[in-house]
């Protein structure tokens, strides 16, 4: 592990999709680097998405039809693929939120002092 990563936490397994979907539902239209940045920024630098998980996840979500990728220009006039949420993605987000809420409540119950 590189030393600069030690202070950050791994993204809990199974939540990457939720984070990407949520980020896109908030910011509407982002490219890959921006998604990673957004997750890092909003989580106050606690969560960090590795590109090694980000891009396979994006590809998988494209395949599932949750995201749509369109090529556009960045402010610096560079070509980039911008991702937006599809209707199916919106539904999936709701579904994931529900699941997350259910699981985290359950976990909270277990670790709460009796």
């Amino acid at each position, binding site marked *: 592990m590189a030393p600069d990563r030690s202070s950050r936490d791994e993204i809990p397994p199974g939540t990457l999709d939720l984070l990407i979907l949520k980020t896109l539902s908030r910011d509407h239209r982002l490219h*890959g680097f921006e998604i990673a940045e957004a997750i890092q920024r909003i989580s106050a630098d606690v969560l960090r998405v590795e590109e090694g998980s980000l891009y*396979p996840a994006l*590809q998988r979500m494209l395949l599932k039809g949750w995201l749509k990728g369109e090529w556009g220009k960045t402010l610096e006039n560079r070509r980039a693929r911008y991702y937006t949420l599809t209707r199916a993605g919106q539904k999936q987000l709701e579904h994931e939120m529900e699941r997350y809420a259910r699981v985290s409540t359950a976990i909270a119950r277990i670790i709460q002092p009796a």
Partner: protein
Amino acid sequence: MTAGELARRLLFLIRRRQHLDELDEEMRLHAELCNRAASRKFGNTTLLKEKSREMWGWNWLDDLAKDLRYSLRLLRGNPMFTGIIVLTLALGIGANTAIFSVMNAVVLRSLPVKNPQQVVYIHATGQPHHTWNTGIWGWSMSTGVYEQLRAEHPGLSDVMAYVPMAFGKAAVLYGRDPEEASADMVSGNFFTGLGVQPVCGRMLTDSDETNHTAVAVLSYAYWSRRFGQTCSVIGHPLYIKGVPFTVVGVAANGFEGVESDGSTDLWVPLQNRPGLNAWGSESDKSFYANPQWWCIMMIGRLRPGISRTAAAARLTPIFQRAAYAPLGGKPQKGEKMPTLAFDGTKGIPGAKEVYEKPLRVLLAMVGLILLIACSNVVMMLNARNAARRHEFSVRIAIGGSKWRLLRQLMAESLLIVAAATALGYFFAFAATRAISRWSALDQDFSPDRTVLLFTLAIMSAIALLFGVAPLRNALKTPVNLALKTTAATAYSDRGRMHARKVVIALQMCICLTLLVAAGLLLRTLQNLQNVDTGMNTQGLLVFGISPQQETRSGAETIRFYESLTNRLRSLPGVLAVTLMGNRLGSGGTNNTSVYVDGEHPRGGSGMVRWNTVGPDYLATLGIKLEYGRDLRESDSANAAKVALINDTFTKQYFKGQSPLGRSIGISSKIQFTVVGVAADSKYAGVTEEAMPMAYFPYKQRKGIGTMQVEVRTAGNPTSFLQVIQREVRQLAPNLPLLQPMTQQAQFDESYAMQRLVAWLAIFFGLLAAFLVATGLYATLAYSVTRRTAEIGIRMALGAQRGEVVWMVLKESIDLCVAGAVVGVPLALAASRVLRSILFGVKPSDPLTICLGLVALVAVALVATLIPARRAASIDPIRALRYE
């Protein structure tokens, strides 16, 4: 997986290049932004791309493509090896495909009509006494039966009739030149009942039948061959036996009629004029006016859900009523009424019965050949993979997975099998065409969809076998071998060598069986070729002539033949000319109860075979006249009625007394005086037994029509065809020569099946020998290489070259002996199956088996020669330096 997902996945596959480029670009941007941010580092781009791409689930395809590409490179790198195994397999697959294709066409294929499983041939177990028949016994019906069944057919949805317009082919004229074509008269519902559509124009209708319209429908093949596939032929006149017909349609591609003896060229509605009589008969009464003449063949379509036997049982009473209606309504005392029987339309009727068994034998032969070919290829692949063990162990040592290795070997097998199948299928196409030509069956044997499926099934089976074969190579490769391998240890695998020897011995035993079978069939063919026909066929030409009856009376016909024979006799190079009713060697004969001195003779079969012949018959054909005289031009209609008989007739019915001056007949009314006795000669075909035979002068018989003209020429008979054609044209401009050929060729055709089977069996025997030789050669060569060091040591210790040669030779002889010990009983058992196809040779013929053994030893010796010489030329010093 949802439909949308599948669609996206496929879209990815189609536009993968673009997708991968996009992914690349995306990564580049990300990496750049990372560098700029400095806080972030970008990981392994290649791995990342790989993982992103994996999400689309097409990796296996990429891997397969990679494996195939690698295998292809490998196989191309060793073209000799690849060529030999692909060719070996292709020969095996091709032979199987070709024979199965013929089997399919002759035995299995259904008529190309709508719902062919419903279509049945309507046969009877016989026909009433006091009726007569033309065609095949039990297949012909009377007009009364036809009309009754046409009107009343419970169990069948349609009843169709077909009647040939001639034995063989009928004279046809389109444009200027007369030609011959096979033509059938059919019922109006023939095409609608079978469900055959027109490609051009229209098919026949019921009103065509009722009005006996002069219209004709062409077969697709005839239309393509003769009329260049132009629909403009419709509306044009076409003369059949001098009667003008109008072409109204062309039948669908593939439909070649329902006749047993080949494809039909054209169909017309049933005709009622005597000139266009059933079977080209010369009777002056149409078959419509002849209720006791059974000459119509029928085919029907079963109603859905009813079985053949049930339908036949329901139709039988109607059939029997109609059959006996013209005979006073009931059978004679003690006469058993015939019943109906329905036969399916699978295969070629007639040919199916004759060819099915030989085809099964051939199919077994090619199956064994495929076995030899496959085992050879497996051995070669294994030997090569053994030589590649070094490579394999290195691959595994540096972290390649065994699964990956196996996958690559399987890809290689798949490529080989696919290439061999494609080549084999191509071989089969060529082979079936050749077989069709040799078989004298005018049929298309080309592979169809069923055959393709069969071939693909073989291919899958072989691919599976070859997939499993490298399993051992892949899984048993020890990692540390890479470090230890030397030339000697890499090949030291005693178990594998032993397995190879067992396989070779088994191959030898199969090869012997095939060689013996081929030998027996070759002897059969020789015997058939050497059969004494009782005549001299050298220089003998035969062709048919069918004078058009509409314009001729009986006397005119005789005058026509008189002037024809006279004209031909006057041609330079023509030595003699005569005529006959049934062509020798064509299978057609007349057989009737005989009268001797006005009575049925006691003893013998009571039957006589007869033919109507022209003057100088015996002299022209070169049949020996035992005593008495030959027939003469003067034996005319008004002269005293005379006949010739053969030796067997004399023996059976005259008990050795002189038959000259005695009277014989084939009816109680007309008696012929015997004027000469001829030696026995062949009539139906070369395999027939001698039978009592009588020859009657054609001028003294009524109803003379189509005759066969025999011309004895000095030189090559076929070179006279043009002159003869010109001569006939001058006499009768519209008459084609029917089926002209040499008499020898006609006799040869009578054993076309045996000839075809023998040729194929010989070819397969040689093929098996060749494959076994290559297998043996490869094994011995391999063994010599393996033992190079050992041989070197032996020679260094004083072994002579002769001993080394003997060492290799002994290996091959041991295999040969092992093969023969198992092979001889196997060959004896297998050749029993051939019994019904053999002629003049017993299945257990010792000479043939000896020759088979000699051939096997010869094959083994030839295969041993090169490895033995190589072993003998090993230089001990160099061999030992290998270590």
